[in-house]
């Protein structure tokens, strides 16, 4: 009567969550049919920040790579999209892929340099690399140098799918572009969360979790820590680059200061992840909602908004290092994206 075993990762909460997610996704896809443009834009903002946050969380929360230079990939990706559209007539939608690939290519020398550094040195090193990229791009005269540039009207009007949306929804061109970029952002965010969740459930994801807990032990059981670092860094750069391209595609204007803003694309993202709960998929989702709520509530108070944000970050670090999701799941044990493999015995 040898017992036999099966392995599952699902929990009741996760099954409910999965069902809810499907409904939510359907609603999200349908939003442009019912919602106002301002809601679509807010959702676009939430989705792109969420994407950035998920990738940073993958880096820092899972890979232990605390990068302060993700703006390099946002900005470089976005600039390649603009450069592609302006200089080589690349359709901006295809340009998104170009943005991702460009960021990936940039990530290779960056990683080569930054992986020589540890801990705080790594953080500062990535920041300096991002500055170097910013200053170099600011000398690229064809896309406006330090002035920046706008996406040419021809390129904007040629965006794949925008024309169809314009006809189908009977909206103005600018609104059609919003809908298109919203759908793209939705697809990117879903692919990001889905992809990261899938990855964490593979054996590589398990190894990543093991490395996070104990590098020495992980290496002794055959985990290739170097390669894991590379994989995580490159994947994060690729996704961050696409997100960057998308953000500035929607924005229509780019300048080195905005594209490589350490505050907008790294600091706020870190806030989102940490406030929500680092090292979980749920954390950034919760974090981005909190961030957005704060921004909406307090944006009219100028400096006070940022002070509150800063103080909240400090408070969370001091009193709830696991973030809001950590508090929540610590109390209730709920996990929406379970990755734990459970061994079930059947006699």
């Amino acid at each position, binding site marked *: 009567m040898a017992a036999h075993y099966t392995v599952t990762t699902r929990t009741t909460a996760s099954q409910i969550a999965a069902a809810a997610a499907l409904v939510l996704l359907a609603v999200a896809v349908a939003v442009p049919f019912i919602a106002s443009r301002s809601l679509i834009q807010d959702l676009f903002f939430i989705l792109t920040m969420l994407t950035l946050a998920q990738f940073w969380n993958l880096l*820092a929360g899972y890979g232990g790579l*605390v990068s*302060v230079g993700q703006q390099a990939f946002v900005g470089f990706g976005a600039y390649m999209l603009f450069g592609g559209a302006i200089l080589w007539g690349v359709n901006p939608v295809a340009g998104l892929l170009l943005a991702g690939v460009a960021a990936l290519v940039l990530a290779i020398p960056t990683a080569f*340099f930054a992986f*020589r*550094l540890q*801990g*705080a*040195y790594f*953080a*500062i*090193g990535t*920041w*300096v*690399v991002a*500055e*170097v990229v910013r*200053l*170099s791009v600011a*000398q690229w005269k064809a896309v406006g140098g330090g002035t920046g540039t706008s996406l040419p009207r021809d390129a904007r009007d040629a965006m794949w799918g925008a024309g169809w949306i314009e006809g189908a929804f009977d909206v103005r061109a600018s609104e059609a572009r919003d809908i298109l970029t919203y759908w793209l952002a939705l697809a990117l965010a879903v692919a990001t969360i889905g992809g990261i969740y899938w990855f964490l459930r593979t054996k590589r994801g398990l190894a990543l979790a093991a490395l996070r807990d104990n590098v020495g032990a992980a290496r002794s059981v055959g985990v290739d820590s170097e390669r894991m670092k590379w994989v995580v860094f490159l994947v994060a750069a690729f996704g961050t680059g696409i997100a960057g391209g998308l953000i500035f595609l929607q924005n229509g204007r780019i300048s080195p200061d905005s594209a490589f803003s*350490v505050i907008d694309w790294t*600091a706020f993202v*870190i*806030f989102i992840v*940490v406030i929500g709960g*680092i090292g979980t998929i749920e954390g950034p989702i919760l974090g981005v909602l909190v961030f957005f709520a704060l921004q909406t509530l307090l944006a009219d108070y*100028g*400096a*006070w908004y*940022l*002070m509150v*944000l*800063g*103080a*909240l*970050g*400090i408070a969370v*670090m*001091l009193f709830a*290092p696991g973030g809001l999701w950590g508090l929540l799941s610590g109390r209730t044990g709920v996990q929406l994206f379970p990755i734990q493999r459970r061994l079930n015995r059947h006699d």
Partner: protein
Amino acid sequence: MIWVDTVLQGVLLGGLYALFALGLSLVFGIMRLVNLAHGDLIVFAAYLILMLVTLLGLGPFVAALIALPIMFGLGWALQRVVLNRVLGTDILPPLLVTFGLSVVLQNALLEGFSADSRRIPAGWLETASLPVGPISLGVMPLLTFLSAIGVTLALQFIFYRTSLGRAFRATSDDPVTASLMGVKPASVFAQATGIAMVVVTIAALYLGTRANFDPTTGPARLIYAFEAVIIGGLGSLWGTLAGGVIIGVAQTVGAQINPEWQILAGHVAFLAVLLVRPRGLFPRAFD
């Protein structure tokens, strides 16, 4: 001749960067604390000096002298109340807390002092110069550089010649064993941050007299300070000074070739040094 001048001016500029960096180096070396609010603390100190100058009608140097103990107390309290709680092997908590602090500080200054750019008046000293052969060196930049050397010497003395400095190094090596010697790590760290704030005040004096500052001036200089600390080597004070000089000279030489490369050249020098020596120029023998 232009090149000699360029390098000399770069060295003097390096003195300013070293002053920015020395406080950071102290805190980084003793507690492995990456203080992202350092630049904003310098700006804060500059406003403090400015207030003393305008409200009490003091000279900038006297005002700075009064600001020193105030800043020491602030640093002490900051470390005691906030930063001690996030020290540890994980670099993220201190990174985030000091970044939060930076944001809070910057915006509080913005509320309090508006975005107007201000300057600490230094009278005739501002434009005074000293001819050295065919080259003319500014008195303020010279004072800045001499102060950087002075601060390095003073910190070096505290570090290696006093019992407080011994406690700094011991606690930095091993806080638990240090506590077995009767050291209170929390209070040693607080004193270290207090001293770092004294250095910050000196840096603020020269930042504020050299050029205009406004509440957002801090972060732009922070990165140079970090570069100086890192290429100098963790915890090496002379290394930090050397690091500042390297960044300064790289910037002026870069600018001489083409002004577009000025800031870039500083960063590239940093990357190049780290590529060759990942632990900086004068690393500690262990850790």
